[in-house]
């Protein structure tokens, strides 16, 4: 059975399951209003102050599962009733303060914000500038840094606090990376869902809905083999399940070609374009170098176009571990190649809603892409795939690669690039540390994720990108 890693995963899943169940049964409009009470029955709360508060948060989660606020173009929203209004003051003296004689905290405060009251430190919050020197100076770790988790992890300072001390997101700064969604311990920031639209598409009689699955699947279902998940997806009504790693093979080939052409033209460097949060980061923080982003589409879009080149009437649903992907098509791509985007959490909710006994299923294979296409799911994969193509094509160009694992490393490389001091010619940027297998809405965060991905890569029938694509007429697919 699926084991939830925390209660946030659990409460999200409860809502997805209910929504999927009623949407499959076609009774969503009648039953939606009952869902908060069905999930939180009786009078006793499970986690919050009272059951009414829990129902209010479930109602907001339900709203997100049904698409969220249509007037807010950010797919990430704060659930006001779920936000716990964490402490406003960043540095707080805790009970660990022993009332020592040295008062290093006071000595080190450049703003004279600390006084000693009854032998213990006291911070005057009006004077505190949150420099952190007292926190660093105390030998007992008695001064805690309790910055809000959402604010702490946001790489673009897009989150602030409103008059009611609830978190608010500045959409112009937000890059949709989803870090806040994962880090908020109250599950108070969530992504909007298209689960109902996908179910409606599956219920139509067209039999043309394809699931394209991100290679991060390797690290998602640690409770059941992938083959059984593929059978379950087909039982939901999907016509076929295709690996997005196949699109990644196509991207790798195109990006290698593009890199050579750009460097030949005298450009100094090119960045990868497969991580939409990284691309957004450049657009918003380093617009000066946006022309250096590879113009090659992402593996998701490439796979969708590949599917539609064979089946033009296909309805393509991407399933992945990513929130930023949900915005990629709209913001960055020319057309609507991908029809809908789901997360693995949402997909699992659909499987559970159908009460499919996943363990009893006969496994079905999933094998379209190459070793290198699959390796896109962790940091270094894109670079490895591009290098392999240059090697097999026997191109003797000196490519100096820089692999950026997580947004902080991306930022360092981009800073250098902006001032013309970057020595590298290819930057791979992955907003999530570890790559897609550590995405904000993955179902499993464990030490074995990379190993699971490596195993999955090695199971690919095709070992090289061009071999995985040899039956496709790729000249007809627009890759920009």
């Amino acid at each position, binding site marked *: 059975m699926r084991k939830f890693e925390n209660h946030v995963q659990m409460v999200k899943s409860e809502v997805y399951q209910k929504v999927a169940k009623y949407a499959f049964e076609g009774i969503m409009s009648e039953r939606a209003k009952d869902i908060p009470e069905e999930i939180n029955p009786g009078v006793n709360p499970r986690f919050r102050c009272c059951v009414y508060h829990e129902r209010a948060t479930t109602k907001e989660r339900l709203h997100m599962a049904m698409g969220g606020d249509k007037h807010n173009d950010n797919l990430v929203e704060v659930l006001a009733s779920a936000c716990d209004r964490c402490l406003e003051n960043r540095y707080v003296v805790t009970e660990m303060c022993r009332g020592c004689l040295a008062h290093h905290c006071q000595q080190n405060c450049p703003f004279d914000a600390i006084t000693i009251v009854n032998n213990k430190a006291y911070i005057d919050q009006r004077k505190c500038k949150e420099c952190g020197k007292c926190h660093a100076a105390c030998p007992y770790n008695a001064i805690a840094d309790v910055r809000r988790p959402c604010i702490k992890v946001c790489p673009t300072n897009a989150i602030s606090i409103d008059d009611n001390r609830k978190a608010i997101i500045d959409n112009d700064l937000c890059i949709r990376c989803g870090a806040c969604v994962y880090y908020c311990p109250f599950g108070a920031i969530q992504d909007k869902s298209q689960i109902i639209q996908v179910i409606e598409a599956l219920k139509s009689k067209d039999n043309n809905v*394809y699931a394209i699955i991100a290679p991060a699947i390797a690290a998602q279902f640690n409770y059941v083999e992938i083959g059984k998940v*593929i059978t379950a997806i087909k039982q939901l009504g999907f*016509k*076929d*399940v*295709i690996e997005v790693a196949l699109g990644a093979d196509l991207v790798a080939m195109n990006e290698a070609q593009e890199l050579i052409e750009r460097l030949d033209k005298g450009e100094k460097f090119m960045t990868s374009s497969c991580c939409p949060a990284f691309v957004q980061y450049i657009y918003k923080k380093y617009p000066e170098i946006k022309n250096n982003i590879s113009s090659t589409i992402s593996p998701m879009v490439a796979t969708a176009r590949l*599917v539609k080149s*064979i*089946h033009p009437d296909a309805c393509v649903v991407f399933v992945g571990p990513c929130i930023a992907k949900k915005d990629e098509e709209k913001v960055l791509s020319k057309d609507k190649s991908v029809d809908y985007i789901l997360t693995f959490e949402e997909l699992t909710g659909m499987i559970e809603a159908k009460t499919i006994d996943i363990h009893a299923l006969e496994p*079905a*294979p*999933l*094998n*379209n892409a190459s070793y290198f296409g699959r390796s896109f799911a962790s940091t270094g994969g894109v670079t490895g795939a591009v290098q392999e193509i240059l090697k097999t094509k026997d191109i003797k160009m000196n490519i100096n690669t820089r692999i950026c694992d997580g947004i902080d490393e991306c930022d360092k490389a981009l800073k250098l690039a902006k001032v013309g001091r970057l020595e590298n010619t290819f930057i791979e940027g992955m907003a999530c540390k570890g790559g897609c297998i550590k995405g904000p809405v993955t179902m499993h965060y464990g030490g074995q994720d990379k190993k699971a991905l490596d195993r999955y890569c090695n199971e690919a*029938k095709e070992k090289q990108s061009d071999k995985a694509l*040899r*039956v*496709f007429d790729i000249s007809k697919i627009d890759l920009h």
Partner: protein
Amino acid sequence: MVIKVCIGSACHLKGSYDVIERFRELIQKHKVEDQVELKASFCLGTCTSAVSVQVDDEEIISLLPNTVEDFFEDIVKDIRGEL
């Protein structure tokens, strides 16, 4: 005439890419490019009898890379007969 070869996962594992390449070679060899259109297709729904191949709207049959040639010879005879 349209020959559809399934390239879904089950068929791919059983060698559908090789089946397609065999067909390509044979189409060229017999110079029937104008009469035969070779197409890849995703899951044709008969995964247990991979590699699934469908000619026009006829029943789906199962081929392997080494049985393509015999099958295609018959198709060529049909085409020549039609001409």
